[in-house]
């Protein structure tokens, strides 16, 4: 009872149907990816759905979503794997059904996806480290509030930062790495503990929106003079942009989530049409601070 040859549309219409299964749904970042995907869907006249698990720890839920997506016989699938190997059997099933798979956000460790639209997180985190090192004068203690210790992005944004410091900044000591699950209140509470335990801390890095805003919140609540503590963030959101404008935050790395979503759907359409695709599509990242936050190029990749 397997219906191979997935050129069928989902809900009666004649548009091709592309199912996107992402790593998350609720967070702003994923909503921005979704926006980009919808833009491309309009432009290329395809129908899409966009789903992701409640937390980035929930591999099983994501597998479930991928399974359901496959049961709907899509024309193509966009997939941001929480764990490539866990998704192996289903990717194989997609392959058997002839459904092209486009990876996005982070690579899928498999040769089934035709291409990957993603940010180079290691390089992005290294850029954050470089700016932080410059700001603290290349010496002193810094700490990190990371959103997740098990996901690939969490690890890459941690390791990219740590590796850069190890390799290039002998004067800088990373005194603590804590994980707040990307939850603002939790990240704020743990940043406060770090700051209490290390009164001479000179810099702190938050690895995603929730972590970064949590750090800013901690600085506010403890009344620390922003001039003595450099905060570097990741991603965007209004709170982070305000913090940069108010001088509470030095600056942040932003990816191009809208671009990721857009490129994924675009690649899916090209795959459906049988076009040749490049091995990776680098969607890029940017450093932004007070000097360039209002530039058109930056504004285009930020979300509120």
């Amino acid at each position, binding site marked *: *009872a*397997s219906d191979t040859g997935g050129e069928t549309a989902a809900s009666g219409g004649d548009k091709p149907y592309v199912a996107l299964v992402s790593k998350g749904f609720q967070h702003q970042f994923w909503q921005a990816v979704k926006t980009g995907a919808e833009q491309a869907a309009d432009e290329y006249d395809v129908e899409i759905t966009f789903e992701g698990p409640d937390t980035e720890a929930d*591999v099983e839920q994501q597998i479930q979503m991928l399974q359901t997506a496959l049961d709907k016989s899509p024309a193509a699938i966009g997939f941001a794997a929480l764990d490539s190997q866990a998704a192996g*059997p289903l990717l194989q099933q997609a392959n058997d059904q002839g459904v092209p798979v486009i990876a996005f956000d982070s690579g899928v460790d498999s040769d089934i996806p035709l291409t990957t639209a993603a940010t180079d997180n290691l390089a992005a985190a290294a850029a954050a480290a470089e700016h932080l090192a410059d700001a603290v004068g290349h010496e002193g203690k810094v700490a990190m509030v990371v959103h997740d*210790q098990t996901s690939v992005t969490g690890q890459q944004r941690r390791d990219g930062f740590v590796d850069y410091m190890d390799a290039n900044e002998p004067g800088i000591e990373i005194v603590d790495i804590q994980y707040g699950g990307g939850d603002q209140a939790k990240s704020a509470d743990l940043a406060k503990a770090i700051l209490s335990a290390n009164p001479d801390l000179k810099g702190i890095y938050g690895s995603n929106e929730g972590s970064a805003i949590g750090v800013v919140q901690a600085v506010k609540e403890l009344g620390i003079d922003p001039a003595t503590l450099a905060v570097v963030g990741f991603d965007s959101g209004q709170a982070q942009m305000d913090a940069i404008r108010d001088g509470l935050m030095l600056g942040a790395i932003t990816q191009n989530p809208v671009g990721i979503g857009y490129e994924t759907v675009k690649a899916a359409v090209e795959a459906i049409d049988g076009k040749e695709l490049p091995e990776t599509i680098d969607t890029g990242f940017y450093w932004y601070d007070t000097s360039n936050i209002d530039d058109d190029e930056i504004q285009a990749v930020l979300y509120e």
Partner: protein
Amino acid sequence: MSPTSLTTSENGSAAAGSALDAGPARFARLRGSLQQLLAAASLIVIVVFFSFASSHFFTANNLVSILTAATVTGILALGTTFVIITGGIDLSIGTGMVFCGVMAGVFLTYWGWPLWAGVAATVLFGALLGLINGVNVSVLGIPPFIATLGMMLIAAGLSLVISGTKPIYFNDTPEFQDIMNLSIVPGLRFPMGVAIFVVMIVAAALLLSRTIVGRYAFSIGSNEAATALSGVNVRRWKLTIYTLSGLFVGLAGVLSASRLSSAQPTGGMGLELEAIAAVVIGGTSLQGGKGSIVGTVIGALIMATLTNGLRIISVPQEWQSVAVGVVILIAVYLDMLRRRRA
């Protein structure tokens, strides 16, 4: 196996009045079956609804997908049904399952044990976690909520510690993933895991309604002090029941790791609520003393079907949880009305 034989005979309304002669007895049994059917009414309505809403829903493949999705939570729910019938609760089943998955990785990949030994050890490891819960609850007298909450946190932490916060892959025992995924019906993707789930349902139903463990679970949940006064070693049976729940946790750990071909050291939190919800939707009382395995299975299927169906008909994700919430309320409310009238 007829539907009634899966329910517990403790279900008063179905069995009452049937004692004296054969005629009413047969009638009562018939009424009992009807009751069970009605208990499943919400599930049937949901299935019918989605079948009309999307042509992708009522297909063999998708129905198997629903069963597959229900397997892990369902097995957790089976074990925890026993605990809840005693009047207890087990919050550690979610992260405990994750912990068991990690231990499967340790046994099979780190230590290179043969497949059967690793699987058996994992299931026993689950039982060990259950035993510790049992000791905390019945020997030390810690309230079940706290005892198992503590275990929930400890299991979550140790999973990360032992795995080094990285997934463990079963590279040395690729057959491991067959436990859940192997297709056992030619031509249909009917995975072995679902078959295991079915076997466990039957086993749990027999245990609950036909063995002493089940009898004492009801008795303890009904009136613990009186049970003890009747000379039943309540402490020992509670230990047994938490350990039994742990066995199911261990098995769920094997199946979920097998499904993902990897031991994921994170997650599992929230799964306990899902499993307990399945149990309670199925009519088992958190006060203890009342419950059935069929109920739990229906509860687990309602949850899995709802989730699947809403995705199949592409309800926007933010509306999905609203819909699940509303349907659960309605289903349980209708079930209550049915019971009250019965």
